[in-house]
């Protein structure tokens, strides 16, 4: 990510060009991904608009630099903080009044001031930005995860294989894409024609096509409440592997609130992925309200992106402190929009376990496969069990 000042071939408005570049860096610092071509396009757009019109200027920046809906609110906040001087002063005096979260103000403010005061020498800027990232992460949650490190750790490659194996029996969906085969029912005219051109167009060899089998998308719900604390490291490794296998995987963490891991698992190695987890949620180790969280899912993400072809995996012990009837209706809603629901319960491995706690009892009728999972090494066994259940 380039944080240094870029030498731009557009010297039209010296101050504005520089400030736009600094502003795009400010966006990056605050977790919005801004590409260099986007910044260049913004600069190209500057002569096209009326710069004295703030609204036009703002739309120019927003349309070019932002590409996700969830970033718009953050952009607005940063835009006002950076480009409207009176607001900047306001924040200097009484930050609590203008923005809701004090941490956010700090991060905005620290970066702003740093840019205003220095004349953009990257060497000077670096120490301040490390300070700022320390502000953004909560160190407490990190410690929690690291403390579990002594728990089992399975080699990634092995893990990928066993997860693929686990999901294989469910991945039977026919895609609308075709692949070419020697035998089949549908003729592939394209291939036939090409193959037989050598015989002057006389059709001697035939070629066929058939539907490809497509992997189903997995939606993974992970319980991170207090009672599940000891499984955190294991499950994060599982989730990371799941995400690496298929980029379409959606991961949600829940305790009393639901949070979605959008890009945190995008990093290729497990350790850098895990270091980004604390920015996700503040609810590690809290209580559980499964029904409430599923409701949030069904109402927001679920409505848009959930399809009946997906597999839902819920990893939880089923200890629920929320309202039972909410859980029931939400499980029913989820079930209606899902291909299969798999519930992985870490307690199930213990001898003599019965799903008697109320949350688990309520959810169970809507679950297609109820499987134990207290150990990563068990996944291979889970896969075999799933095959048996389906057969």
């Amino acid at each position, binding site marked *: 990510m380039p944080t240094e000042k870029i030498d731009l071939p557009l010297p039209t408005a010296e101050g504005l060009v520089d400030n736009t570049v600094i502003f795009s860096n400010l966006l990056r610092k605050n977790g919005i*991904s801004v*590409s260099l*071509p*986007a910044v260049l*396009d913004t600069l*190209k*757009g500057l002569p*096209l*608009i*009326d710069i004295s019109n703030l*609204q*036009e200027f703002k*739309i*120019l920046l*927003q*349309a*070019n630099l*932002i*590409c*996700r*809906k969830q970033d*718009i609110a953050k952009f607005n906040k940063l835009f006002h903080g950076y480009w409207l001087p009176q607001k900047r002063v306001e924040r200097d005096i009484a930050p609590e009044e203008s923005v809701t979260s004090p941490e956010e103000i700090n991060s905005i403010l620290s970066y702003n001031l740093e840019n205003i005061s220095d004349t953009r020498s990257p060497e000077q800027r670096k120490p301040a930005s490390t300070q700022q990232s320390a502000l953004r992460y909560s160190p407490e949650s990190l410690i929690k995860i690291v403390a579990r490190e002594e728990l089992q750790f399975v080699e990634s490659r092995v893990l990928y294989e066993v997860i693929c194996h686990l999901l294989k029996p469910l991945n039977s969906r026919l*895609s*609308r*894409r075709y692949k070419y085969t020697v035998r089949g029912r549908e003729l592939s*005219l*394209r291939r*036939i*024609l090409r193959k037989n*051109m*050598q015989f*002057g*167009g006389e*059709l001697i060899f035939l070629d066929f096509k058939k539907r490809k089998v497509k992997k189903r998308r997995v939606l993974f719900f992970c319980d991170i409440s207090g009672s599940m604390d000891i499984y955190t490291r294991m499950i994060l490794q599982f989730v990371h592997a799941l995400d690496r296998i298929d*980029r*379409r995987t959606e991961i949600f963490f829940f305790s009393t609130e639901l949070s979605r891991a*959008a890009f945190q698992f995008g990093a290729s190695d497990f350790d850098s992925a895990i270091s980004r987890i604390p920015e996700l949620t503040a609810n590690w180790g809290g209580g559980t309200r499964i029904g409430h969280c599923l409701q949030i899912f069904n*109402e927001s993400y679920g*409505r*848009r*992106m959930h*399809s009946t072809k997906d597999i839902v995996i819920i990893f939880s012990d089923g200890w629920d402190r929320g309202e039972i009837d909410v859980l029931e209706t939400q499980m029913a809603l989820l079930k209606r929009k899902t291909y299969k629901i798999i519930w992985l319960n870490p307690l199930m491995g213990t001898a003599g376990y019965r799903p008697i706690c109320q949350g688990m009892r309520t959810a169970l009728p809507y679950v297609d496969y109820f499987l134990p999972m207290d150990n990563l090494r068990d996944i291979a066994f889970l896969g075999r069990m799933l095959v048996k259940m389906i057969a």
Partner: protein
Amino acid sequence: MNARDSFSSIEGICEQLKQNRYITDQSLATVVYLSYHLHKPIFLEGEPGVGKTEVALVLAELLATRLIRLQCYEGLDAGSALYEWNYPKQLLRIKMDEQCSQSPEEMGQVIYTEPYLIKRPLLEAIMSSQENTPVLLIDELDRADEEFEAFLLEVLSDFQVSIPEIGTLKATYKPMVVITSNRTREIHDALKRRCLFHWIDYPDLDKELKIIQTRLPDIDETLAHQVAIFMQNIRRQDLLKKPGISETLDWAEALLKLNRNVLDAETVEITLGCILKYREDIQKFKTGIWADPDKRTQFLTSFSDRHAH
């Protein structure tokens, strides 16, 4: 004023859009203006029924040019998006020419020419832009799979396509591209950052009213007010599917067909299917809101009532 001249200013675009019965705010007009001058595609996101596709239709009208539409679906591939050879026609030609004892090379020169080429939307956009800039609408991109997105990236970057048998075709004028998505999945950033992003929200009361009155000029003013207020209210409710502006227009049109000048409780009940499309939503509405007389009056107010208060 010529439509193309109006693209020289943001106000001009705003005005032209309005004349073409598309009510919008300055932000969308600015994005259109930038897209036209920077030659960048517009990427529109928003809830269903807020008028994303309509933008492309209106733009084509405005520029007095062709609209080329590519509706995305799962499994959409280069064959159905870019070009394909007309295989049955080629086979027939081969059979017809069999008597003339042509060599395979000569045959190839005949059957791999433009008359045997089926142009799909993307190729059409590239080839037709040799005369003037068409509008290319890539609708509901989120329905196509990721493989297609990657392919699109290549086409959108330079509007150039190589057909091995013919050669490289390049657009002289880049088409104006509008991409829409309903966010059933996230589109990859690589594609998004090549576009100008714009989020279309549900309209506010004034805008909704203007839209109703522009689209349905015959509508009674009180009824238009009532419908707009009703829709604003119903969107505040906790529903599975909030009705968009297209539902508003459907509903208002239905009311016109039923010869209603005023929205009353009975009319709402019989036409509820125009705005709510889930059984649970209808039930929730009937038991939770409609049963409550206070809320009912609140939903049925018109502007004049509100001003009286």
